[in-house]
């Protein structure tokens, strides 16, 4: 199929690349089919482009690339829902807010997207066992480091 996405123009989508979110994501319950668009020039940020709405896309990132101490503990319900078992690892992505000033970008650590890659099945979960914020700055350390360098 083909989707004329707002951010990326025409995208040819192979059927097996489609990721189903049967419940949608929070706030968009009826938007259920997505693809992951990976652009070399925006690495490590990828894009979750909705196929049901060409205007809907989310900037996403592997949260473990940014935060070494991030932990996702899924409850049994989520594992069963996503048909995850020990041999089938899950892909975990966090949605970002990218404002005009990209230095002020934030990452949603409280509600990651969990995707069973083999089954192309996803769900956004709200982590209740950890007190992660849904709006955490991404680049705070860089700024501090830069300050250190300039003052040092």
């Amino acid at each position, binding site marked *: 199929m083909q989707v004329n996405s707002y951010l990326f123009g025409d995208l040819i989508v192979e059927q097996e690349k489609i990721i189903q979110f049967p419940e949608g994501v929070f706030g968009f319950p009826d938007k259920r089919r997505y693809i992951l668009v990976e652009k070399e020039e*925006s690495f490590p*940020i990828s894009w979750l482009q909705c196929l049901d709405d060409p205007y*809907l896309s*989310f900037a996403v990132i592997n949260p473990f690339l940014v935060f*070494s101490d991030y932990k996702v503990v899924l409850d049994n319900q989520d594992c069963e829902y996503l048909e995850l078992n020990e041999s089938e690892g899950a892909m975990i992505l966090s949605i970002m807010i*990218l404002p005009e000033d990209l230095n002020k970008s934030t990452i949603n650590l409280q509600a990651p997207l969990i995707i069973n890659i083999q089954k192309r099945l996803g769900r956004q979960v*709200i982590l209740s066992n950890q007190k*992660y914020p849904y709006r955490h700055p991404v680049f705070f350390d860089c700024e501090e480091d830069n300050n250190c360098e300039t003052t040092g």
Partner: protein
Amino acid sequence: MLILTRKKEETIIIDNTIEVTILHIGKDQIKIGINAPLSIPVYRKEVYDAICNENRQASQTKCLDIKSIHGLFAGCNNKKKSIKL
């Protein structure tokens, strides 16, 4: 809104599948237990609303110079950071 009166350890059942039981009644709060099928997620409403709102804001990313992102991370992707709580 349907209003029902329940005592401790009494339950209501919704749509044949969802059971809500009053487990404990305190001074300012009550503890409820919910038995629901896997396909029915249950969240605290204020948390649910906040995450919906966050997703809506995240979906507003429109005009974007994608190339500037790469440079942004290039300066600081050597060392990972700790989450600030």
